[in-house]
């Protein structure tokens, strides 16, 4: 479903280049939930932004559902739903419904289809009571639900979540986890980045660990437990990073 091949991404900062991703290769299969683990600044957001067509790789290629993210960006965008952060992408002065209708129009959904999708999502997330209220007055949890609804409004096959539970309380985080389970049941392909190891353990079929722009592990959790001789993912993550430090120093 997603093929990342030898992707390197460099940013120019004044006169020097900073390498955010170094020769990353990764295959993500249809219907799979994969967790991107890494510290802040490891390169998770850069990788997700590259998949989402927002960034162009300096070298290497990314294909989403057979479409190249650089040459066929529009085709990629139609198939993707992306949420960067826990509650972003909303306009405070518009109602929840107006926010959703606006994005539906950008995805070129018809009026009837938009109404059906919004009604379905409002029911799914329990948003009916506040669907016609302005988002500015919403709690974090309410905003998160609207943001997620916006992300999956056009029924994308592939969904990217970048640190979706950062700053959320336990209840809101649970809402998100339930949603991921539901989307997984619907056969969606999901990539989400997090530095919360327990969350990844709960939701993912596979994990990919990134450290200083390099992919230091990629595989199933079972394989990882077996290789490391432990089921403590937090411990495994820290020891992987420590080994990565030595290996790539």
């Amino acid at each position, binding site marked *: 479903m997603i093929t990342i091949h030898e992707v390197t991404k460099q940013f120019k900062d004044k006169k020097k280049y900073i390498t955010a991703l170094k020769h990353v290769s990764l295959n993500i299969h249809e219907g799979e939930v994969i967790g991107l683990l890494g510290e802040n600044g490891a390169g998770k957001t850069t990788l997700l*932004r590259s998949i*989402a*067509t*927002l*960034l*162009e790789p300096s070298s290497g290629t990314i294909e989403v559902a057979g479409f190249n993210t650089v040459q066929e960006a*529009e085709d990629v*965008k*139609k198939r*993707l739903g*992306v949420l*960067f*952060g826990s509650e*972003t*992408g*909303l*306009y*405070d*002065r*518009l109602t929840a419904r*107006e926010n959703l209708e*606006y*994005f539906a*129009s*950008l*995805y*070129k959904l018809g009026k009837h289809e938009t109404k059906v999708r919004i009604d379905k999502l409002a029911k799914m997330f329990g948003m009916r009571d506040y669907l016609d209220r*302005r988002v500015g007055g919403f709690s974090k949890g309410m905003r998160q639900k609207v943001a997620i609804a*916006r992300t999956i409004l056009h029924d994308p096959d592939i969904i990217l979540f970048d640190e979706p539970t950062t700053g959320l309380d336990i209840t809101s985080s649970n809402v998100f986890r339930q949603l991921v389970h539901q989307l997984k049941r619907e056969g969606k392909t999901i990539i989400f980045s997090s530095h919360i190891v327990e969350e990844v353990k709960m939701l993912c079929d596979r994990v990919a660990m990134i450290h200083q722009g390099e992919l230091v592990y990629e595989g199933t959790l079972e394989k990882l437990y077996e290789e490391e001789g432990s089921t403590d993912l937090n411990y495994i993550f820290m020891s992987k990073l420590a080994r990565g430090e030595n290996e790539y120093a």
Partner: protein
Amino acid sequence: MLNILKKELKDSFRDQRTLLLTVLLPLVLMSGLVFFNENLLSPYEEDVYEVAVQDAQYPLVQKLLADNENLHISAVDNVKETIEEGNAVAGIVIPADFEEKMAAGATPSVQILNDLNSQNSTLATSAIEASFMQYSQRIVTEQLAAQSIDTAILTPFTLEQVQIVEGDLTIIMLAFLIPLMLTLSVGLGLSTSAADLIAGEKERRTMEALLMTPVNHRSLLVAKWLTMVIIASMTGIITLTIVFVEIHFFTETLKAGISFGSNALPIALVSVSVIISYSAILASALMVTSIFAKTIKEAQTYSTPITMLTLLPSMLMYNVGINELTFTHFAVPVMNIFAVFKELFFGIVNIEHILTAITSNLLVALIIFIIGRVLFFRVKWVLAK
């Protein structure tokens, strides 16, 4: 693109700051301007100024200035102190033997005490001078008559001013102040929305969500630019409407000074066209600053000097007479707003000048827009860090 435009307008006009700056600010600014000028330009015959004179000289001064209805003479102990305490706007110090000295052929001196920082004091001084000059001429005429000399000797020739361009001080003042306030209002009215439309999207991280949709960057940018042009034009049109409604219904001097007659409709249409072309320049410029900025605050920091810069041409245009306007005045963007409005206030509708101004403004707006478009297509400028 229409959906984006509709959403941007709805979002902008739900922002109380936009309403405050597009409607309330012009109302306050223009009301202040209209009523200040009405007061300034109204004939001052109706005003009466308090003039202090020492007790002993009161009868003499009262006699000399009796004909001047703008002056009220008060007898006081100390003239200087009375003015300093604000109880009179001017004072007269005159010798007790003033008339005797004149009769004896001497030249007695009269002092007018005043405060030239005060407009009332200046006007009172002029009124006192006029009365004394009149008195002086009367004395000279009487003395010449006593010596059987024809008073025509005093006027070997006459000097006459002939105004070849119609218009008075009222029009000159308004032709300068209205475009000045107009450019200021449009700039202030647009700055908040412009900052919010792009830098605000980056700050709230809604820009990423937008760029993730299949809508192309060009449509997005054009819709945002059009929103800015509409908001700026609305501010300008509201500003001008307020001015003319207030002048028409609440003033006498300004209303008498401005009379467009049958030219009213073409002048209104030209004004709107010029405002739109100016709005296009400002929208392009503030769009670029909004793309540069990472936050709303940063965008507003950039937009303030740009708005102030647009006021600069007004200084260059202040002393330029209507018959001194050249092609350059109409070809230089922003300066041409002042040139066109100057002509309009004098009742001149010169199509060539108007088209030069509008074309020049739109051309510059397009060039700045292209710069903005280049920046907007670079990820570095549109994504939050």
